[in-house]
């Protein structure tokens, strides 16, 4: 290295650093010099630390040498060098050996150093001590905790906190001192202020002491309670952080024992109006999140007060506070948006906040709390705003709008116009456009009225779209929906344009799409023109395109002779249940004998388009309920690395009230597979329908039982999934005895029972009972009794004791009902009203419910009982109204006939009155369903 470059680094004006070896050599030379040049040493330490902050590191031997040299500097009594030495020791201790050797020098400083140095010395004890030496610092740390100087006290408390995992016994002896440190308000000694600044004690020592105390007492609920009482009632806590810590402490207690919540209600109430915003936030967070898991324990007044506090925090000028309040409100909006509607005015004014994070949050919350009234105004506000925000935010907004379109199908026009506007005029990357297209696809499939307008605009869009993936998706959609519109030839032109202009990927997608138009309507001219187009494409230079065109032509020609089968191949009417298809294929592949026969595709559950849509809609609405749609978007969209205002952590802590429907669907498939794998059921033929599983016991019972009803053509099977929640008892020969409620007139003949041989602790297994029934719809109730033999478990072997005969026991569980709903599959229909009017047979029934339950509970019950799909977003009862109309649609699982229901309900002081009006192609089914609603 030339003298010139060397000099460059000597000049402290330069921002550059010399290389690693130079620094190392300089440090080694200078630190070992005697006498010590303190100015130069501090400069070198500063350089060394800068180097390490860049991520550079030293091999262990060099680091150890450096550490050793640095510790030589202890002989120099300059405070300002000493502070730097401590920094170096902390940084180097991670990578060097023998850090213990500095202990005695550090301890000397703790005892005799100046007040400036003492805290640094105490805190660096953390890094040099280990399990075996930690006890030696006990006396020093203890006396430092009670020091009058707040900095020394804090340093000692944090050092103890760090050391806690390795020397709990030692630190435990500080409990009293720590307690004192919370109570003791330590100001800075005013007389010996040396520097230019006047320290002003924030009493943050209280925070550190409280943090340590919690760790020391965390297993003892009673003493935690005592802590809270002691510090909450006397007004001892001055520090903001300490107060927040206290709120968290209360949270910890009530999470462990929710019943204690009532004791803290008054305290929480007071904290909501605490002078610190952080305390208000933390308290509101506590109350609202606790309310989602334990709604009964939180009084409505307290909850309202928490919301009010948050509402107030929305108007403060500090961004962080607003942001935090919005975060909490956003969590609530996923679970129960109706509860925060009162914040809407504040939220609306935040839409135009200069801070984009804040405004985006406000919009997403508003979109969730939105009611039919303010949607169009909301949409127009967003339209002004969306072009200015970044892609990530746009995607969040688009997703929120998409869920809105599912919730308020009647508002499709403004939503559609908005989406089309952003699609055509918005600048953005692939993920942004893709999310718009996805939203449009959702609207097209669930709001049929919007179909033509949306498709036409999508056609315009593909004229000028740079993303292959999106183009392919749109072409597929056009092929699927286009043939059934009033003017299919319009789309044919657009699709054919793609064939002429685009690359081979898009050409092949366009071919498939085109071929679907040929047979959809019995329009010979359309068919002829498509055939001629396809013939032209059959000369394409790309193999794939050519192949697809030839296949399509072949199908179209053969459709004249074979009819429907070719049609099915071009435009499939159903898809397979992919999960069972996969498992069937896997088992087919694993068995080499099976190859002798072709794979039997007909046993796989088929899902028709309407059913698929029904499932899709149900899933999306449920997601909306549990708020996971947003988080889901967060992990699938571009937000993977982005700033989703939603976070996984939120999802984990805020579970929606409803059971995850999708999971239940999966469960049903699993049950069905298990069922069909049992030999005795094979002769029953194919499974017609399975009901949702219903709880037959309280979820906290010793034995939890859930029932599922499986329907076959002439048989019915009840499946009881039984969970043994006990840890020390094993159950043998478990079965459920079902006796008809009305044995005289029972139309079901019991065939056999399959018991569970042995149910180990904390496991789940299923017992089955089979009945023969006639082909008609049979409805009956059964009284159920769980029968089993209990045996105690030998704790050593986890087996029952030898010779233990156990004793017979019975356990009464709720009755299981086979009702009309079990014969119905939920199905989707775009235009409910027209369909309803067209169906021939009508049946009306009136019910009066005298129990005190909410409309929402009635709706939930109706939906489960009928197994129909609620349409037009009628499954949510408005909070502010006493009447509601529920629209349900389904198809018979046996014959596939449609059934539609409208249920009008009015809530009064006497109870709820229902008027159900059912219409169906099948009069008996209709009557059975309508009369068996409740």
């Amino acid at each position, binding site marked *: 290295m030339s003298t010139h470059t060397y000099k460059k680094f000597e000049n402290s004006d330069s921002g550059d650093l010399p290389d690693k070896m130079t620094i190392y050599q300089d440090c080694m030379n200078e630190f070992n010099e005697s*006498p010590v040049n303190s*100015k130069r040493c*501090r*400069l070198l330490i500063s*350089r060394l*630390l*800068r180097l390490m*902050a860049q*991520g550079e*590191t030293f091999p262990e031997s060099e680091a150890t040498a450096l550490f050793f040299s640095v510790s030589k500097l202890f002989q120099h009594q300059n405070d*300002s*060098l000493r*502070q*730097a030495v401590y*920094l170096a020791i*902390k940084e180097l201790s991670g990578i060097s050996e023998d850090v213990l050797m500095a202990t005695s020098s550090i301890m000397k400083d703790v005892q005799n150093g100046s007040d400036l140095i003492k805290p*640094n010395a105490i805190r660096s004890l*953390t890094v040099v001590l280990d399990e075996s030496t930690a006890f030696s610092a006990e006396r020093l740390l203890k006396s430092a905790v009670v020091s009058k100087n707040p*900095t020394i006290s*804090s*340093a000692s408390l*944090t050092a103890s*906190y760090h050391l806690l*995992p390795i020397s709990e016994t030692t630190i435990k002896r500080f409990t009293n001192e720590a307690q004192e440190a919370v109570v003791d308000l330590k100001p800075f000694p005013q007389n010996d*202020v040396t*520097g230019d*600044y006047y*320290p*002003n004690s924030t009493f*943050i020592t209280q*925070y*550190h002491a409280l*943090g340590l105390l*919690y760790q020391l007492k*965390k297993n003892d609920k009673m003493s935690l309670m005592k802590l809270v009482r002691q510090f909450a009632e006397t007004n001892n806590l001055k520090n*903001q*952080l300490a107060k927040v*810590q206290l709120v*968290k402490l209360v*949270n910890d207690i009530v*999470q462990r024992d929710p019943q204690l919540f009532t004791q803290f209600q008054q305290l929480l109430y007071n904290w909501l109006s605490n002078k*610190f915003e*952080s305390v208000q*936030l*933390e308290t509101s*967070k506590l109350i609202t999140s606790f309310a989602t898991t334990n709604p009964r324990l939180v009084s409505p007044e307290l909850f309202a007060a928490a919301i009010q506090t948050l509402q107030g925090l929305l108007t403060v000028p500090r*961004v*962080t506070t607003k942001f*935090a309040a919005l*975060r909490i409100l956003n969590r609530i909006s996923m679970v129960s948006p109706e509860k925060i509607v009162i914040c809407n005015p504040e939220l609306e004014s935040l839409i135009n906040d200069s*801070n*984009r*994070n*804040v405004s985006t949050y406000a919009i997403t919350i508003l979109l969730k709390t939105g009611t039919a009234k303010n949607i169009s105004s909301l949409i127009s506000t967003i339209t002004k705003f969306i072009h200015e925000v*970044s892609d990530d935010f746009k995607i969040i907004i688009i997703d929120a709008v998409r869920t809105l379109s599912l919730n308020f199908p009647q508002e499709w026009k403004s939503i559609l116009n908005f989406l089309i506007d952003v699609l055509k005029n918005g600048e953005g990357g692939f993920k942004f456009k893709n999310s718009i297209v996805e939203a449009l696809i959702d609207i097209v499939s669930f709001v049929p009225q919007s179909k033509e307008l949306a498709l036409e605009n999508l056609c315009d869009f593909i004229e000028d779209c740079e993303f292959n993936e999106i183009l392919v998706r749109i072409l597929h959609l056009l092929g699927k929906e286009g043939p059934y519109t009033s003017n299919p030839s319009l789309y044919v032109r657009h699709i054919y344009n793609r064939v002429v202009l685009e690359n081979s990927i898009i050409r092949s997608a366009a071919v498939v799409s085109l071929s679907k138009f040929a047979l959809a309507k019995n329009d010979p001219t359309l068919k002829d023109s498509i055939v001629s187009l396809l013939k032209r494409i059959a000369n394409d230079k790309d193999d794939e395109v050519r192949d697809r065109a030839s296949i399509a032509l072949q199908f179209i020609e053969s459709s004249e002779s074979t009819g429907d089968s070719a049609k099915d191949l071009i435009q499939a009417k159903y898809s397979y249940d992919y999960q069972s298809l996969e498992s069937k294929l896997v088992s087919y592949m694993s068995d080499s004998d099976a190859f002798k026969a072709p794979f039997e595709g007909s046993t796989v559950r088929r899902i028709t388009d309407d059913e698929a849509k029904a499932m899709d809609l149900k899933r999306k609405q449920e997601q909306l309920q549990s708020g996971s749609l947003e988080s889901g978007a967060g992990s699938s969209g571009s937000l993977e690395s*982005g*700033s989703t*205002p939603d976070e996984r*952590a939120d999802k984990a*802590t805020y579970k929606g009230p409803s059971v995850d429907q999708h999971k239940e669907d999966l469960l049903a498939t699993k049950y069905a597979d298990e069922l069909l794998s049992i030999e005795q059921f094979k002769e029953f033929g194919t499974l017609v329908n399975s009901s949702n599983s219903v709880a037959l016991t309280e979820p906290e019972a010793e034995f939890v039982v859930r029932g599922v009803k499986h329907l076959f053509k002439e048989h019915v099977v009840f499946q009881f999934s039984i969970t043994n929640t006990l840890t020390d008892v094993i159950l043998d020969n478990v079965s459920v005895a079902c006796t008809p409620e009305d044995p005289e007139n029972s139309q079901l003949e019991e065939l056999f029972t399959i018991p569970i041989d042995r149910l180990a602790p904390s496991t789940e297994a299923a017992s089955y009972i089979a009945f023969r029934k006639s082909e008609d719809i049979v409805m009956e109730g059964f009284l159920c009794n769980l029968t089993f033999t209990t045996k105690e478990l030998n704790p050593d072997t986890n087996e029952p004791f030898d010779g233990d005969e156990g004793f017979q026991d019975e356990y009464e569980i709720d009755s299981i009902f086979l009702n009309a709903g079990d014969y119905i599959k939920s199905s989707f229909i775009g235009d409910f009203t027209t369909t309803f009017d067209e169906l021939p047979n009508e049946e009306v029934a009136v019910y009066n419910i005298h129990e005190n339950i909410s409309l929402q509970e009635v709706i939930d019950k109706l939906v489960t009982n009928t197994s129909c799909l609620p349409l037009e977003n009628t499954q949510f009862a408005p909070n502010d109204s006493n009447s509601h109309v529920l629209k349900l649609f389904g198809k018979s699982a046996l014959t596939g006939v449609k059934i539609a229901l409208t249920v009008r309900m009015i809530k009064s002081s006497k109870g709820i009155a229902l008027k159900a009006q059912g219409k169906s192609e099948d009069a008996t089914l209709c009557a059975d369903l309508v009369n068996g609603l409740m």
Partner: protein
Amino acid sequence: MSSLSLYCVEALLILDGTGDRVYAKYYQPPHSNSYVQNASLIKNVKKQKEFEKRLFGKIHKHDTEILIFEDHIVLYKEYMDIILCLVGSIDENEVILQQGFTAFRDSLDLILDSGIDKKNIQDHFDMVLLAIDETIDNGIILETDPATIASRVTKPPTNEPQLHLDLDKGLMGAWGFAKSKLQERLQQGL
């Protein structure tokens, strides 16, 4: 839900105008194995730098103060050619983190006489480090009052007290001693 741990700050970063780090410190409780949420970030410098670049892309020229980034709360402030960031755990009370961040920012403001910029930070790196060390200790917020922090940050020592003078005196003394001895001998010899 909010954890009761005092370890609430996960990292402190000072990035320059191009997203390169000027200072970066990822915190980890010194003696505990239970807290491994950030394990990959703490150990792996390459990942840290990637994280910083991604974060920089999100916050550069977006003056929003606070955001949620990859399951962390990030508070930041952009100056001319430098960005100060505090990365906190997702469950922590935002206002508490804000307190820690403000303390960090304002104490830098106090100790760096001519304002916060890249050159000033590099020139007074030792003081910046001390200020950070006095604000956050292994992820615990140690102090929130900027004046208290600034009062605990020492300036680099001024030039060494006149050691060489003593040395001169010693040499002179020795010389004088030798001279007198020599004179004595010479006189005796004479």
